[in-house]
């Protein structure tokens, strides 16, 4: 008997994870927490790519894996740059609460 997992399980989990990550990005004020929420969203994307790869893979059923490979590499680069930016911001502002950092914000004209 062949066991299998329906693709909609993967896709529903992925959609829920993506939305929860989006909720985290929209509500958190700490920059590290925002980066962590972005990681959750990236993982959700990876899961859905794996699911679609199972459905639509043509040449070797492994095209989707290449994209997951690239996304993992890009996430590593993003985390490294994020860490450096946080350190730089922390050194200049003494905190990394994004709502308190507004030196790029346009000054209000009254």
């Amino acid at each position: 008997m062949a066991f299998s997992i329906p693709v909609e399980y993967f896709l529903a989990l992925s959609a829920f994870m993506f939305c929860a990550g989006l909720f985290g990005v929209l509500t958190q004020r700490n920059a590290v927490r925002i980066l962590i929420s972005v990681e959750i969203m990236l993982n959700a994307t990876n899961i859905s790519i794996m699911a679609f790869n199972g459905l639509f893979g043509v040449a070797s059923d492994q095209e989707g894996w290449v994209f997951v490979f690239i996304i993992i590499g890009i996430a590593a680069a993003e985390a490294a740059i994020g860490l450096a930016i946080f350190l730089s911001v922390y050194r200049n502002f003494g905190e990394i609460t994004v709502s308190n950092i507004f030196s790029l914000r346009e000054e209000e004209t009254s």
Partner: protein
Amino acid sequence: MAFYEDPLQITFILTAIYIIICMFMVITVEKVMQSTYWLIMMLVGVAVTFLLANSEIIFAFQISIYAGGIAVLLLFAVLLTEHDDAPFPNTLSKFLRATWMQLIIFLVLAVNMIVLILDTVDKPDYLREAGGGTPNVLGDSRIPVYGDENVAGAFEITENYTLFLWDNFGPVIPFLGLLLLAALLGSVKLAIREWDIEELSDEMKAQILKSEAS
């Protein structure tokens, strides 16, 4: 087949519950450090879903790069900075007042996406696009990894993947290497600090003056 008759589906559902609990803790737990630990546990759960989709090599990447490398970077980011621990207000009414709009976006988007997915995968057009069969190829590919009759399946899949990646997507590997090198150099440039000798302790100052003199 009902889901409770299929050990693979039961495993997947348990993994999904584990991922969702960990994700909830990541977003709501008070200390940022604990949040990062929960993230590591969630990433391991995601790796298990990759394993259930028959891809050991991505499982290995996920564990080593995501749950290993990226998590350590995040831990360092937490250690080297200061945080006001408390992502959300303590009481439910204050929480709802502070985040009602985001909650609505989350609920509407999540329900919408999940209903849309469940609706779409049942359509005949979609089934035809997916190759005529039922869309449940995951965990049941042509080379079964965990079948009794083909124990070496995992090695075959990994070998196929590396050959496929190298033959068809060769430039991806140097591209990723260049990207990571650029990220490394950029983060060093961003994080490097011009220091002043006056900031150092007396001991260090004496050491540096001594080395300059000699």
